[in-house]
């Protein structure tokens, strides 16, 4: 084999190694995105509109009730697979006046024989309505513990603010119930993106 061919071979090998390095780097970049993405979102707050400053703003309790306006509120429930509970809304849909306080009940039942603790995480759709939906009293403020096969009612008192934008006629409140270790709580203000230690699926 002549010098030229050998030279070409080693040149090819160099380029190949270099490009393989790029591939490995990019594979690593995918995993580096996990912490970087969280960091980026925390610094810039680009992650979610629903978690921007309005959310921290306390909605002033409206002085009066707007009897002329109707808003439809729908209730939706999800149970994370790691929680052996049944969880349902007793009222699925209701029409409310902004400014008036209403109470609805949810029901939860532990399907296992062990005592299990969970907590519900609320979210409102459309997200633009989030700051105008205030929960005076909610089972989601605290962790809930049910002993084996125990059944419990979960009450919610809420009000839709009179400041709710005109174009919103209907909104959905959705709860996801998740399993929780006995010692931890979910701070609602931190949002669900904050790392919370939760029991895995066995």
């Amino acid at each position, binding site marked *: *084999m*002549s010098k*030229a*061919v050998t030279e*070409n071979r080693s*040149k*090819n090998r160099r*380029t*190949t190694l270099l*490009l*393989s390095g*790029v*591939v*490995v780097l*990019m*594979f*690593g*970049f*995918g*995993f580096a*995105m*996990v912490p970087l*993405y*969280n960091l980026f979102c925390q610094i*810039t*707050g*680009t*992650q*979610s*509109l*629903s978690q*921007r400053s309005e959310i921290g703003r306390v909605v002033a309790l409206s002085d009066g009730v707007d009897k002329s306006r109707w808003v439809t509120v729908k209730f939706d429930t999800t149970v*994370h*697979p*790691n929680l052996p509970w049944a969880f349902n809304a007793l009222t699925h849909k209701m029409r409310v006046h902004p400014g008036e306080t209403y109470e609805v009940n949810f029901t939860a039942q532990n399907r296992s024989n062990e005592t299990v603790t969970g907590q519900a*995480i609320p979210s409102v759709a459309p*997200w633009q309505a989030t700051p105008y939906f205030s929960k005076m009293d909610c089972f989601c403020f605290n962790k809930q513990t049910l002993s084996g096969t125990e059944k419990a009612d979960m009450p919610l008192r809420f009000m839709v603010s009179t400041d709710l934008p005109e174009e919103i006629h209907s909104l959905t409140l959705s709860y*996801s119930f*998740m*399993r929780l270790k006995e010692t931890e709580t979910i701070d609602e203000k931190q949002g*669900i*993106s*904050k*790392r*919370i*230690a*939760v029991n*895995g*699926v066995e």
Partner: protein
Amino acid sequence: MSTTTLTHDEAHHHEAPKGWRRWLFSTNHKDIGTLYLLFALIMLFVGGASAMLIRMELFQPGIQLLDPDLYNNLVTNHALIMIFGAVMPAAAGLANWMIPMMIGAPDMALPRMNNLSFWILPAAATMLLLSFVVPFFPGGGTQINTGWTIYPPLSVQVGMSMDFLIFAIHLLGISSVLASINIIVTLLNMRAPGMKMLKMPMFCWTWLVTAFLLILVVPVLAGGVTMLLFDRHFGTSFFDAAGGGDPVLFQHLFWFFGHPEVYILLLPSIGVLSHVIPAFSRKPLFGYNSMVGAMIAVATIGMVVWAHHQYTIGMSLGAVTYFMIGTILISIPVGLMIFNFIATMWRGAMTFETPMLFAVGIVLMFTFGGLSGVMLAVVPADMQYHDSMFVVAHFHYVLMPGAVFGLFAGVFYWLPKWTGHMYDEKLGKLFFWTNVIGFNITFFPQHFLGLAGMPRRIVDYNVMFTEFNVISSVGAMIFGLSHLLLLYIVIKTIRGGKKAESRAWEGAKGLEWELDSPPAFHTWTVAPQIK
């Protein structure tokens, strides 16, 4: 160098080996190119069959043929098979055949790796088909009803067929990364003496950029699906909110791959057009340098605008504005390419053989798809169109002309070179017209369906959408069946036909036309001198 290469070749492999060994152990770029093209042709029919089943189901409202999960599994398979099974291997087949012949190299730089990168594909395709078959067996779990984007949390809940799919994606990724490395090394190191980078044929340039895109984004997808696999089986919570993860992260990883993927599919076809249009306009390509520049610009901007697929996830105003402006910016270099093609045709002595018909069709229809793309890039408008049939119409108008018709043009353009026979021009033209008319009947009405509010990826629809769906389904049958004609033409050309000259088209320029048709098993063992 040249003389030693000759003796080396003479000593080891004079002629093509015989039998199955020729194909299984092949390190010859022409044979591997043929294998890639045949594989792509088979996958085109598999993916096309699933598309026709989808359209049959949508012929009438209600659920006729397919239950919802099966329907969505077919939607998933159609996308994955067409993208990873048909378009990318076909483009890689063209690259394998043409790049060494175009740059005056005896073969690809890494022939054994070339063999590996092809032979991974049948294994990957088997995995993909297994993911479809497994749910039919007891204990096989649910079907992959997620669409090709495999977003969690749904993809975490799907049965074991998702694991087959994840491994299929890993294999496909490895295959295309290996092929890309091979192509880049070949293009950087193996050019004939005197061929500077800016003298390289356009098809080689487009593949250089495509290959770089592939090695940059495919590993990120591999990382994303690996995390998905870990979430499914090893108790991690990369994408599980309950464990502190974020399902939106997967969307970012996926589209960081998924958007550049669009350009990966498009660019090789732009490369083909840059040869076909000058050849049949009998003029050199207008604005070669600007073409190269525009292409690099498209690839670069295309890497950083992925989140325009995710406008509705609730990003901040600043973020969506950035992604909107970036996306619209891409239309400038793409527009420049289109204008270059039109300027090449301008006052040329044009004739309309089948490759040229496809080329002109691409310039028209791809531009149309680009236009609806700009509509979708605008945030407030996209909020309306998101996940509607309008999106389906848009990306088929971009990908069918942009990628597939470009490959058809390339196949018809180089078929005489590969086989040594001219294809039947009459049949070729018939194929073009049935194909293009079928395509437009299928996808044009879907714009209206989307604007009227018909969602995509749903098996049933409101009766008010019936008429346009009927038209679309009839078009899809014409479109799908027209590909049988392609199969017939290709087989007929391989078996015989009018003898092709070495310069099969009198306007064709480039090193590949200096070789015989069909070329010898080993070509350019003596590198040509480029002035």
